[in-house]
């Protein structure tokens, strides 16, 4: 159901780690709950974030949600396509709907994230 090779946060974000780079997006569950995405407020490249910081917002017609950094580091890339085509987050949340890439200060923080199984259970419980 949720890709096994990714890690997940309790804020319904996924993380794909390659070396010290973490690509971040929102999960399929999150996009479904939010409804049609109409807008994203994204950070500037170069912004430093701590794990747990709000780094942007994601907006549907009925709600606005915070985007919370799952790991600490520097924002090195932002998905420039999203402002024009926010619906990509709904259509392919795990591929073209990626949101930012963070250069991690401490890849050890990945261990605090959930596996696909544990994320599934987290959704069932909540």
């Amino acid at each position, binding site marked *: 159901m949720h890709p096994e090779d990714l890690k997940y946060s309790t804020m319904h974000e996924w993380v794909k780690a390659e070396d010290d780079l973490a690509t971040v997006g929102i999960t399929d569950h999150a996009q479904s709950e939010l409804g049609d995405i109409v*807008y994203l407020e994204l950070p500037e490249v170069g912004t430093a974030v701590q794990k747990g910081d709000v780094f942007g917002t994601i*907006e*549907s*017609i*009925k*709600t*606005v949600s915070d985007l919370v950094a799952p790991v600490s580091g520097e924002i090195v890339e932002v998905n420039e396509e999203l402002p024009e085509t926010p619906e990509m987050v709904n259509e392919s949340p795990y591929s073209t709907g990626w949101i930012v890439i963070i250069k991690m200060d401490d890849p050890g923080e990945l261990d605090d994230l959930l596996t696909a199984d544990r994320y599934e259970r987290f959704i069932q419980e909540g």
Partner: protein
Amino acid sequence: MSYIPNTDADRRRMLDSIGADSVSELFEHIPEPYVLDRPLDIPGPLSEMELRRYAAELSGRNINLDNCACFLGAGIYDHYLPSTVPAVVGRSELYTSYTPYQPEVSQGNLQAIFEFQSLICQLTGMEVANASMYDGATALAEAALMASSITGRTEWLVSSCVHPAYRDTMRTYAWAAGCRLVESPRTGILTDLADVSDRVTDQTACVVIQNPNFFGAVETLAEAESVAHGNGALFVVCFDPISLGLLKPPGVFNADICVAEGQPLGIPPGYGGPLLGLFACKKEYVRQMPGRIVGATSDAAGRRAYALTLQTREQHIRRERATSNICTNEALNALAAAVYLSTLGKQGLRRVADLCVQKAHHAAEAISSLPGYELPFDVRFFKEFVVKTPKPVSGINQRLLAKNVIGGLDLEKFYPDLAGHMLLCVTENRTIEEIHLLAEVLSQ
């Protein structure tokens, strides 16, 4: 009568249906000490007939603008109200509806407001407009708050030629939000732009100019704009919607936000309310703009339709992070303004503006030639001008009233250094006979 259709028999049936003996049973859970044990101490009831009679008598105790030649302006104006306006806003499908949160049954209101937003953009040369604020004063306060939100700065630099009641309102909102109003002084009845330039700092969120200003004088917007933008502040203009029939609009001056009191656009003076706050800004700031906004879209059959949009900025969704707390606005007055602008159109608005300018200048000339009267300030003006009087303004106004003429504002009310000066307004509603009567009484 309380407009309650149900009779005792209907109520009996309803009580039986819900298994209650009496209506008072439905209020039993209210702790007894807090149930009012006496009738409210208010008058009435009056039947409709008695109410009409009483209202006629009470309203008859007021001298009203239909019976007078009004030369008083200062923020509320006796402009002509075209007959199409009450005909449209009196249609109860439009005025008894609620906020159009259910667009499928509210296309009337929604399309009218979309057109209103469009007309305000056309009038002001701005990119987007909202569906209204309470009045010019609160629109201006919200503009300053928006500027603070965009720039992250807390100082509002406002010309003292901006309407005193607007500055007072801004002061209250500034205090509430932890911002600071800084007033820049005047030279005569114009903003001292050199002083504005000195006063602007890296904490200035916005530079605010009213044009024409409270005294009716035309300001040099281009200079104010460069001071604002040269210092990273937003340029906020408060305008007169009728004047834009002739004057260059704020959009041409690169204003970031512009606001106005929309009462001149088909809304009666109403003793000062309800009014109409106009609010427009650059498209890049649309997500920080307060108030409701209507957007175009399609329905399931592909037909063009309209809906409230960007609601996520508003209180009912964003709650404490909303751009403003505004919910109810002045929608029906926005509709009135749309009807007004549609009825007048390009030619009509130009015509009204021109009539105001011609008549105001004729009156100014006539009065300045009266012994003891002068126009002490050499400024360009639109429909209002300042006159220095040889005798106290209050006495002059008393004599005018005896002839069913309402004289201009005694400027001492707001500007102590302008005691002995009167702010006169001449709109398209004033005839040459009325202007000559004014001059005649002034000369006595």
